């Protein structure tokens, strides 16, 4: 890593009574990247975000943000962070403009705060003078995003920003996050929706019970888990398809219904496999290369950790 990480958590532990929030969590977020914290509810994603801003202090371990300790330099850290929490945390009795103004004043922006610009950027300018209590969930999320970027923070912490949104609004929000990342912001995003992380994350951290099961760039992690090329083969005759299991070059075979995922030692084996199957009378309906998704990685990692997960089969 050329530059110092923006966020560094080292062996961070935090409990709430008997419940463990974080258990020896270590995390490094490089500048200008999107890090996605993945995990089920209660995995420690929100607690991690709260540690980063210093809203919560660790029982043990070290937290550094911009090289500062949020526990002692909280104001200096928080003024450089923009946070969108799982609930939008907006003041329903105030209108959108007053909500943004409140944030602008707390962050010391003064009367020239770009309130209207931020609202236009997130498509909420038309509702600025309406009370937030009357906003839809999507409008609230947009306003919360506008509020988070109002002071042009270097680090954005987004805790399930698409929670409760319809698919179109969620997509729009993800595009906005992508734009912010493209603009050089460092982003830490929590989600349990794997499709959100796909294509957005420079780094994923899979959390469970307050600890990181795995972290790294998605492509690298997928290569680590599936080092062999993989193809998906569909056939009309599901039993005949099982012949693949014993063919040369097949490293791994997993069938679900009429589709099989086949890992090979070399992609050049594919014509031989097709030839062997057709010679045995198996009628193939699809042969396609397969790139494992983040979702498959997530379930593979969690399965390996001992989590009880329903088999999702071949996709």
């Amino acid at each position, binding site marked *: 890593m050329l530059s110092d990480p923006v966020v560094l958590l080292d062996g961070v532990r935090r409990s*709430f*009574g008997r*419940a*463990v*929030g974080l258990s020896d969590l270590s995390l490094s977020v490089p500048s200008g990247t999107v890090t996605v914290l993945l995990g089920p509810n*209660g995995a420690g994603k929100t*607690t991690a975000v*709260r540690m980063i*801003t*210093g*809203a*919560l202090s660790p029982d043990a371990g070290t937290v550094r943000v911009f090289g500062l300790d949020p526990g002692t330099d*909280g*104001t200096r850290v*928080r*003024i450089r*962070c923009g*946070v969108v*929490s799982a*609930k*939008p*945390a*907006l*003041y*329903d*009795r*105030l209108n959108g403009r*007053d909500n943004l103004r*409140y*944030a602008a*004043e*707390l*962050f*010391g922006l003064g009367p020239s705060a770009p309130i209207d610009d931020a609202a236009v950027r997130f498509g909420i300018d038309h509702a600025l003078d309406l*009370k937030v209590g009357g906003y839809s969930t999507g409008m609230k999320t947009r306003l919360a995003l506008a*509020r988070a970027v109002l002071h042009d923070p270097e680090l954005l*912490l987004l805790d399930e920003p698409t929670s409760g949104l319809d698919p179109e609004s969620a997509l729009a929000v993800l595009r906005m996050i992508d734009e912010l990342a493209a603009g050089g912001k460092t982003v830490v995003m929590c989600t349990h929706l794997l499709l959100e992380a796909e294509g957005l994350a420079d780094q994923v951290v899979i959390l469970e019970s307050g600890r990181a099961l795995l972290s790294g760039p998605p492509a690298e992690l997928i290569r680590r888990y599936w080092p062999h090329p993989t193809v998906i083969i569909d056939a009309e005759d599901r039993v005949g398809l099982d012949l693949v299991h014993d063919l040369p070059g097949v490293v791994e075979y997993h069938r679900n219904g009429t589709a099989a995922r086949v890992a090979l030692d070399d992609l050049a084996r594919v014509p031989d496999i097709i030839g062997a199957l057709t010679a045995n009378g198996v009628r193939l309906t699809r042969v396609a290369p397969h790139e494992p998704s983040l979702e498959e990685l997530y379930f593979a990692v969690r399965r390996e950790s001992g989590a009880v997960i329903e088999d999702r089969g071949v996709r």
Partner: protein
Amino acid sequence: MRLRSRVWVVARTDLRQLWQSPDFWIPMLILATLFFVVAPAGLLWLVTHVQSTSVVAKISNTIDVLPSSTKHAVRGLGPQAKAAYALSVFLFAPLAVIVPMTISTAVGANIIVGEKERGTGEFLAHSPASEREIYIGKLIASLVPGYLTTVVGFLIYALVVNLIAGPKLGGWFFPTGDWWLLMFWVVPPFLALTLSVVLRLSARVRSAAAAQQASGLVTLPLIILSYGQSSGAVFGSVRAAFVLGAVSWIAALIGLHRGARAVTRERLLGAESAA
């Protein structure tokens, strides 16, 4: 950014929210109107217009137990005038304490736990405002509605009693010196002391309903004490009222200093013991 600036931002935003909630301030306005206008005006009108009743005589006799300075002020006046003076200057003095305490307790009980309940505490916890700035801002926002209502109510009350009882007492007689002392030296620290307890409760409990109940129980003794003390401030000597105010200020400052520790980011998040 200077501490004062963020304090004011927090206080102003809370006050703006209260202002935009008629469901909160209309009942408070009604309460203040009842205590400062309707009840005094009704009683004074009765006392000054009902002819020679034993009740008027009894009220006027209360002057006999008051300090000599008071007796001197009403010397030579008839029973109706004496009764009007007793009611105006002494009977309603505790209202100057009860009204602000009721309003400020209602605001203060909800002001921190409300952030927790609505989830907006998360925004404050991640903001650059320090815990002390948030606490002082919330304190000001709790104190202002009650005290402002009381000061305005006091001025209207002065107008009402002077208009109704003034003609019987030979002109405008209210506020007396004791009342000025009560309003601007004794009431503010009583209010601050009560709020130091209420805000601490608001930070610690998990729901606004619990905060209201707990505040009611905890502040009741304070209100009773304040009731007695405020009467004493007016009944007693100026010097006694001055000392009472000074002691209250010291107690309030200690209470506020200790109460400031109750507001923490963890409590704003509602994360003291929950994952």
